């Protein structure tokens, strides 16, 4: 591999690497100089990579790179890419981080919706949230707080490093306008004023 590879081989490598999915001969040819011997090039690259950790493989009439099948065990391939945390989970985590320690009821009050059981469980399973004692009020509800793992994951030295409301607003992350409009629309139905006819001037 020390010898300098030919330019057309380099192009095929780069194309297949950057592609969103397997490519047909025609799709590859469209990016290469005219008259490039696409099939021969592909076979050349296929041979070159045959023993490596990455292989060029053909599926139907499409080609793509994939990791060598025998290395499957070290990749421990996930069934799916890391999933995005649900909005409920992110919001719950945010409320806990900003207000900790908080009870479940407080989280629900701030978010305005009830919290499904799975959400807190998930955050605890991820190691970002932990139970942190009980509030000494009737019912002694459990309190929740963030963990050192939470700080580590978000690269924070302490919770005080979280941006405050003014800073969120300054960064454009606190925009109540849309919600204010929505709230105003909801109020619209209420009768504006009720006077007059019923209490005429006769009295």
């Amino acid at each position, binding site marked *: 591999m020390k010898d300098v590879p030919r330019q057309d081989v380099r192009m095929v490598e*780069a194309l297949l*690497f*950057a*592609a*969103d*999915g397997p490519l047909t001969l025609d799709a590859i040819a469209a990016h290469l100089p005219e008259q490039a011997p696409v099939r021969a090039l592909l076979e050349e690259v296929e041979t070159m990579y045959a023993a490596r950790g990455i292989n060029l493989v053909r599926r139907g009439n499409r080609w*793509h790179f*994939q*990791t060598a099948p025998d290395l499957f065990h070290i*990749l*421990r*391939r*996930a069934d*799916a*890419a*890391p*999933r*995005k*945390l649900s*909005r409920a*989970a*992110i*919001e719950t*985590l*945010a*409320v806990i*981080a*900003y207000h900790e320690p908080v009870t479940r009821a407080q989280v629900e009050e*701030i*978010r*305005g919706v009830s919290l499904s059981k799975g959400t807190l469980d*998930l955050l605890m399973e*991820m*190691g970002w949230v932990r139970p942190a004692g009980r509030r000494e009020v009737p019912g002694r509800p459990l309190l929740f707080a963030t963990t050192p793992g939470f700080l580590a994951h*978000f*690269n*924070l030295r302490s919770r005080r490093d*979280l*941006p405050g*409301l003014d800073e*969120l*607003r300054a960064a454009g*992350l*606190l*925009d*109540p*306008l849309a*919600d*204010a409009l929505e*709230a*105003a629309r909801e*109020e619209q139905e*209420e009768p*504006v*004023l009720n*006077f*007059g006819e019923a*209490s005429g*001037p006769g*009295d």
Partner: protein
Amino acid sequence: MNDLFRETRPAAEEERLDLDIEGWEGPLDLLLDLARRQKVDLTRISILELTEQYLAFIADARRLRLELAADYLVMAAWLAYLKSALLLPKSDTDEEAEGADMALRLHLRLQRLEAMRTAGAALLERDRVGEQVFVRGAPEGLQQGSRRYDCSLYDLMRAYGYLAGRGRAVSYSIRRRPVFSLEEAIRWLERTIGGAVDWDRLSAHLPRTGDPVFRRSVTASGFVAALELARQGRLVLRQRAYDAPLEIRAAGE
């Protein structure tokens, strides 16, 4: 000053100062642009000339009645002061020293802005991922222990900003106050005045209320409604003395 301004401007079309104030991001940006037009190394720029160019620009903009943001005018005032300090006869006065210091400060700020602008351009010139170089288009992904879920600090901040913003919207919402509109007041007066030819207090023709806020609205709208109807010749208005109650009657005769 305008003459000087034109003198220092080369006549070539693209060199002419475009009087579009939107083109600059604030006074410092405009100053840097003017400094570049001196076509010398920024370390050799003449602060006095720069000051005069800026003041001329502002004068032109005002002559053309362009909207000028306050910070442009603040900078103009500052530069006018700087100019007078620089023009004082050379002596060891405090003013002269202060002028030199102000000029130095402006000079350093321009150099810094210029440096960052150049640096930004140099960054964009690099082989950027997704522009000149590409990462793998369809990675299989690695399973990494506990990181099955993805959430960045940005996601977290945005979520909290959303929640907090919602709370804030409620506290800022304007409560609807009871109001007696002008239209309502006119309708009310029209109905109650009828054909009454006797003088009567205006307030007797308006709705009564125990709500002090609403009463203020009734008084104001009732008064304006009475004026409007008087203007239309439909009622007559009088006040016997200063501070006496307003009286109205239908404009019969």
